[in-house]
C-alpha cells in the first residue's frame, strides 16, 4: 500500500439551504476542493459520495452529482455508514489510491435534509437503529438513543446537565468564528439549560441541528500529491469498527465500544501511544451529534480516563490552550450535521488546521503535526477514527 495525501478540500456553507438543489450544493464543495488542488473535474479518476438520504428526493445521489459536477464518466459510488457515511467515503477513496488503482480520487458527502419537514426527518433518523425492535413498537428517536447513553453516563459518574451544556457552549463559541457554520452565535450554559427537552435528559441545545451541506476532499498517491501541492496532508491511519444494531445488546451505555475499537486500531497503525494520545495530537474533531457524544468521545479516544470525560468539559480543557482542542469548527453541534457530509467535513477542517489556514481565533497551534477525526454513525453503530499528519 502506498502513502495517500489530501491535496484539496472544500466545504459548502452549512445550514438551511433552500437556495440550492442537492447537486448544486455538492458543487459548492467540489469546486472549492478542485480549486484548492488546482485540478479540473476530468482529473478525478473516481469519486465516492457519502449520503444517507430518504428525506431527499434523489435516490441515486452519486449519479446526479457525477453528472452535474462533470465527474462522470469516472466511476462513482454512494456509500452509507449513517452519520459516518462521510468517513466511509474517505476510507473507500483512500483504499482506491493506496492500492494503486487510481492516482486521484475524490471523497465527498452531501445531504439535503430540509427537503422534508422536520417530523419526517425525526422519523427517518429514529428508524436508524434496529427498525422492528426499537422503532416500530417503541418510537425511539435519534436523540432518544443518545439519551439512553446520557442517562446511564450521568447516573454512573455523576455528570450533570450543566456539564453537558459546557460542550454546547464551547462548540457554539467556535462555530461563531467559522463563517461556514450553521449557528453563528455563542450561547451560555444558562440558555442551554433553559432549552426544551427533546429526549430527556437531552435538550434542544444538547443537539446538533438538521442541516443541508456538502464537503469534498481530493486524495492522491504520494508521487502525484507532491506535484500538486507543497503541503500534502497525509492520511496516516484509519481505524473502523461496528457496534450492535440493537442498543439492548450493549454491555455498557457509558461509552461506545465501536469508537474505542476504532481508536485502538487507528492508534496502532499510526504509532500513537493509546495511553496518552493527546501527546501526539494538535487538534481533534469529534462526533458531537449530542453533547453527551462528545464527552463519551473524550473517554473512548483516551483523551480522559473512563468516567472523567465530563471533567474535561467542566474544566474547559478542550478549548485552545487546554489538554487538547476539540471541535474548533463548531462541531456537529454548531457547524451543523448534514449526515453524509459530516465525516468529509471533519477531514477538510483538520487538513486546513494542519495547514494553519483557518480563521483567527479558532486555529489550533500546530506543533506535532498530527490531528484526529472521530466520526460515529448512528449510536455507535459505525465508528471511524482517522489520523492525519503533515
Amino acid at each position, binding site marked *: 500500500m502506498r502513502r495517500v495525501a489530501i491535496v484539496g478540500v472544500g466545504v459548502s456553507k452549512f445550514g*438551511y439551504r*433552500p*437556495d440550492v438543489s442537492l447537486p448544486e450544493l455538492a458543487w459548492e464543495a467540489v469546486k472549492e476542493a478542485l480549486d484548492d488542488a488546482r485540478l479540473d473535474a476530468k482529473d478525478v479518476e473516481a469519486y465516492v459520495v457519502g449520503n444517507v438520504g430518504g428525506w431527499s*428526493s434523489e435516490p441515486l445521489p452519486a449519479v446526479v452529482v457525477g453528472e452535474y459536477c462533470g465527474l462522470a464518466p469516472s466511476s462513482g459510488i454512494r456509500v452509507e455508514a449513517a452519520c459516518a457515511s462521510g468517513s466511509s467515503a474517505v476510507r473507500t477513496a483512500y483504499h482506491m489510491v493506496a492500492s494503486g488503482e487510481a492516482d486521484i480520487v475524490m471523497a465527498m458527502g452531501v445531504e439535503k435534509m430540509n427537503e422534508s419537514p422536520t*417530523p*419526517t426527518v*425525526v*422519523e427517518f433518523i*429514529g*428508524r436508524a437503529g*434496529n*427498525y*422492528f*425492535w*426499537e*422503532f*416500530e*413498537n*417503541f*418510537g*425511539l*428517536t435519534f*436523540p*432518544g438513543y443518545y*439519551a*439512553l*447513553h*446520557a*442517562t*446511564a453516563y450521568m*447516573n454512573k459518574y455523576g455528570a450533570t446537565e450543566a456539564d453537558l451544556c459546557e460542550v454546547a457552549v464551547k462548540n457554539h463559541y467556535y462555530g461563531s468564528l467559522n463563517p461556514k457554520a450553521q449557528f453563528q452565535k455563542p450561547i451560555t450554559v444558562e440558555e442551554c439549560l433553559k432549552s*426544551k*427537552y*427533546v*429526549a*430527556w*435528559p*437531552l435538550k434542544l441545545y444538547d443537539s446538533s441541528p438538521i442541516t443541508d451541506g456538502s464537503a469534498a476532499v481530493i486524495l492522491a498517491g504520494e508521487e502525484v500529491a507532491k506535484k500538486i501541492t507543497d503541503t500534502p496532508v497525509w492520511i496516516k491511519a484509519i481505524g473502523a469498527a461496528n457496534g450492535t444494531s*440493537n*442498543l*439492548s*445488546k450493549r454491555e455498557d*451505555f457509558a461509552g461506545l465500544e465501536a469508537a474505542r475499537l476504532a481508536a485502538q486500531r487507528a492508534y496502532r497503525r499510526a504509532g500513537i501511544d493509546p495511553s496518552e494520545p493527546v501527546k501526539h495530537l494538535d487538534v481533534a474533531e469529534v462526533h458531537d451529534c449530542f453533547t453527551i457524544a462528545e464527552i463519551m468521545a473524550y473517554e473512548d479516544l483516551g483523551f480522559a480516563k473512563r468516567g472523567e470525560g465530563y471533567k474535561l468539559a467542566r474544566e474547559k480543557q478542550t478549548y485552545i490552550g487546554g489538554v487538547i482542542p476539540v471541535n474548533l469548527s463548531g462541531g456537529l453541534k454548531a457547524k451543523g450535521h448534514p449526515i453524509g457530509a459530516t465525516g468529509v467535513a471533519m477531514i477538510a477542517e483538520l487538513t486546513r488546521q494542519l495547514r494553519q489556514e483557518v480563521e483567527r481565533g479558532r486555529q489550533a497551534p500546530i506543533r506535532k503535526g498530527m490531528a484526529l477525526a472521530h466520526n460515529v454513525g448512528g449510536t455507535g453503530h459505525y465508528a471511524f477514527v482517522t489520523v492525519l499528519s503533515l
Partner: protein
Amino acid sequence: MSTVVEKLREYLDRAEAEQIRQLDQLVAATGLPVYRDPKTGALIWVDVRELRLRFQLSVNRIAKFVEGLSQERLYYTVCRRCGAKYFPPQADCPRCKSSDMEWREASREGELVTWTVINVKPASFAHNKDYVVGIVKMPDGFNVTAWIDADPSTLRPGMRLRLFVGKRPGENYITYWFRPV
C-alpha cells in the same frame, strides 16, 4: 373503534391537510407548484408526487414470538447446539452456524438499566403523549428495550420492573412494556 392504523392516518392527514390545500391553490392560481420560501426568499418547487411508505416485514421464521404475544408471553431463542441466547429472537445462530433453536419464555421481572423520555416524537408517534423508553436487564441473560409505564421522575437505575404483554392502551395491538414492581 378506530385502530392504530386508522388513527395514525387521520392524524397525519390532518397535519398535512393545510399544506395540500395550499399546494392545490398554488397550482390553480399560477399553474406552477412554486413559491418563495418565507425565511430566505429562495424559490421552491413543491413535489407534486407523494410517496407513502408502509413496509411488509417477514416475521415468518420468528412466528413463535408473534404467537407468544397473542398468548401474552415474550419468547426468546436459545441455540440447541451452543447455548447462545437471543433477544430479539434469532432463527439462526451465527456463533455455531446452527439453526436449531429452542423457544423459551422470558422471565416476568427485570432491572432497569437506562431510560429516556421521548419529548419530540417522530411523525408516526406524534399522536402519543411523551413516552418513556427503557432498557431492562432480564435474569435470562439479555436486555429488553420497551416502553416503561411510570412517572419518569420515580425511575432509578437497578429498580425492579415487571414485564407486561398485551394490548397497548389506545393503540389496540399487542406489544410488551414494563411497569415498576
